[in-house]
């Protein structure tokens, strides 16, 4: 949807994923959309270099999120939110309806 503007499908995927989930890592994003993990990773690195995303380390994983200091963040999120309304309902739900609450370790279900 925003590919003509952002220049690549993966750029759109990465930003929409982070808009919906707040935080994510390359393999997780790749698992959700499919595709090549390397190109998702490169896209994340590119956005971080451009100041759009920020990352932090959790163990050996680089977790990415929007950089709150990016000057166009409010406008970018508004654009992404609008784009998300054009997504098919099932895809939108899949993106938004994931478990966030903690799960006690050892719990059978």
């Amino acid at each position, binding site marked *: 949807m925003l590919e003509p503007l952002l220049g690549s499908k993966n750029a759109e995927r990465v930003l929409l994923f982070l808009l919906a989930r707040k935080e994510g890592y390359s393999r997780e994003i790749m698992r959700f959309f499919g595709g090549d993990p390397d190109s998702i990773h490169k896209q994340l690195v590119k956005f971080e*270099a*451009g*100041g759009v995303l920020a990352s932090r380390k959790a163990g050996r994983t680089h977790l990415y999120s929007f950089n*709150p*200091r990016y*000057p*166009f*963040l*409010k406008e970018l999120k508004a654009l992404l939110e609008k784009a998300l309304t054009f997504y098919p309902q099932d895809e939108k739900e899949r993106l938004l309806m994931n478990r966030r609450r903690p799960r006690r370790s050892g719990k059978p279900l």
Partner: protein
Amino acid sequence: MIPLKELTAADLAAFIESHLTSKGIEVVLSGGACVSIYSSNKYVSMDLDLINVLFVKSGRLRDAMSEIGFVEEGRYFKHKDTDYFVEFPAGPLSVGSEPVKKIIELERETGTLRMISPTDCVKDRLACYYYWDDLQCLEQAVLVADSEEIDLKEIERWSKGESRLKEFNNIKWRFIKEE
């Protein structure tokens, strides 16, 4: 060629900036190095963040930096004669969601140093504190305010624009100088 070994952060930044300006590349010093300069090294940063204001392509930056002996290593440029390293964060020059409007120019022996103002430096540090709860950045903001004149009303206006007025009101006392 100026010997870089003994240069302070301000003199080194002025030297690099002047060289880049001569190549048509405009950069402005921001980040922790500004805290070092304004606080007379009460906080020390070895990282010179030169904001690439006109979005010059990395190849041109690399060529210009190599002319003065800096070598690109990952995101940074290093020089064998200095422990300081240089980064060129992508523009625009901003503090939070606002553009930086006032640039300070200081004439140094090594060239002209262009950097953000003390007030914008405090905003820049407070942005880290507001968004990442980084207490070190709050302390750096206080160091700048202790050493330089800052416009607290302007910082309050900016904090409100960042939707952080409540946070600002909680820390405002740290910036009020006793008579």
